[in-house]
């Protein structure tokens, strides 16, 4: 009998804590648990509550949450660096970006990818969670062809696909706030009562997360391993999409030539270009070098207003 009771208690907690238990079961859970004789009703309610908290805890941001974090980060970025939304250039940039994104393993995000030139003379590019990708007008000016422009966008798509921005702020405090809000939503539904969501808690969590991502984008940068990982992913993405992966090395050589003249933007937040080239050449085979097509050269010059 004791074995049966132990089994029952164990089964019950497993069902509530991990399996396919339903909400009705949760409602009657405390009294049923108490009836096993191992716990009193107060302990039973506590057990059930912790079980729910464990299962309600989030391990990563949902696609929708990542999108709203990305929107808030972008709102901050754009307040310092306004977008340059020339129709033809914006379309061209988004056609290149979507060509790459569609070849990635994260081709669709909650709100889709958006590629934008931002007004800044500093060489810089960054991406916000969810697929907002920014490249400075100063960087665009330095790039000689479509494949080089694609190389910069591919590096930023890599950060989006790897969720580097979202992961930088994915800490226990954030998930505790999100889980608490989720629990509130669930308990309001079960008890059929109305109640305010955890507005203050979540607004603070969003503010902290935005601050954390901004710090990475504008001052601290991601870890070196994340940057090397983004370069490697970018080279593979360029090859997959039909661009010349060597364009990424070309971009890094352009940056290398600028080192010392400019210490802000990409220079402040990324490893030294020479180190990135060395790392990339160690990890990626450039053996089958493809040539840049004349059609791509022509449209780059036409849209970007460069002389042949």
């Amino acid at each position: 009998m004791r074995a049966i009771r132990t089994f029952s208690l164990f089964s019950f907690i497993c069902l509530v804590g991990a399996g396919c238990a339903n909400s009705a079961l949760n409602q009657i859970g405390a009294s049923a648990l108490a009836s096993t004789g191992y716990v009193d009703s107060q302990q039973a309610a506590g057990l059930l509550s912790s079980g729910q908290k464990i299962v309600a805890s989030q391990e990563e941001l949902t696609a929708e949450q990542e999108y709203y974090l990305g929107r808030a980060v972008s709102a901050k970025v754009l307040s310092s660096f306004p977008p340059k939304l020339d129709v033809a250039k914006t379309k061209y940039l988004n056609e290149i970006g979507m060509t790459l994104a569609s070849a990635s393993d994260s081709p669709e995000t909650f709100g889709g990818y958006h590629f934008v030139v931002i007004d800044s003379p500093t060489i810089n590019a960054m991406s916000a969670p969810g697929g907002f990708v920014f490249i400075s007008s100063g960087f665009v000016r330095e790039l000689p062809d479509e494949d080089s422009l694609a190389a910069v966008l591919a590096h930023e798509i890599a950060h989006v696909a790897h969720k580097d921005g979202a992961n930088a702020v994915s800490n226990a405090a954030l998930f505790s706030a999100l889980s608490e809000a989720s629990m509130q939503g669930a308990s309001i539904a079960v008890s059929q009562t109305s109640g305010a969501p955890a507005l203050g808690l979540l607004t603070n969590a969003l503010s902290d997360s935005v601050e954390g991502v901004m710090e990475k984008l504008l001052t601290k940068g991601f870890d070196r391993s994340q940057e090397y990982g983004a370069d490697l992913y970018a080279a593979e993405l360029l090859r997959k999409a039909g661009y010349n992966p060597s364009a990424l090395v070309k971009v890094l050589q352009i940056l290398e030539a600028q080192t010392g003249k400019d210490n802000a933007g990409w220079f402040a937040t990324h490893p030294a270009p020479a180190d990135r080239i060395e790392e990339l050449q160690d990890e990626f085979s450039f053996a089958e070098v493809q040539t840049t097509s004349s059609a791509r050269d022509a449209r780059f010059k036409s849209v970007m207003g460069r002389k042949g």
Partner: protein
Amino acid sequence: MRSLLLLVVGVVLTSPCYADDVWVQVRESRVRAKPLFYATTIQSVKYGDRLSKIGEENGWVGVRAGGREGYLPLSAVSAKVIVFSSADVAKVKADPSELVLAGKGFSREIEQSFKKDNTSARFDLVDRVEREARASSGEVERFIKQGGLK
């Protein structure tokens, strides 16, 4: 005790696990005829739509939609049950770890609250970027062909 055992066994036998279903986790997507980004659309789907999963290959998930079989990028779907109102939470037979409550957590509502504390943040420009900085599937497909890309 017997009734509790019956209850446990009953729940195990009757609670569906939704193991063969996926939910669309992006605002909108397309079920394609082939596992290729620019393949023909056989059905448009939106956030929270439930689809019956029939397989998975190379970053694509095979689904049954509208009586036909098609494909979506794996990044566009979630194995978690997506519900839209807290009232639906009680109706769905899944525990919270398998649930996503749409519009909760970071959401439009929290964004509005964040805006009040961050009046210099330019959400108006973000809206403009979302409207203007984009390219349609047809445009990108033409762009790829014209540029000798894949």
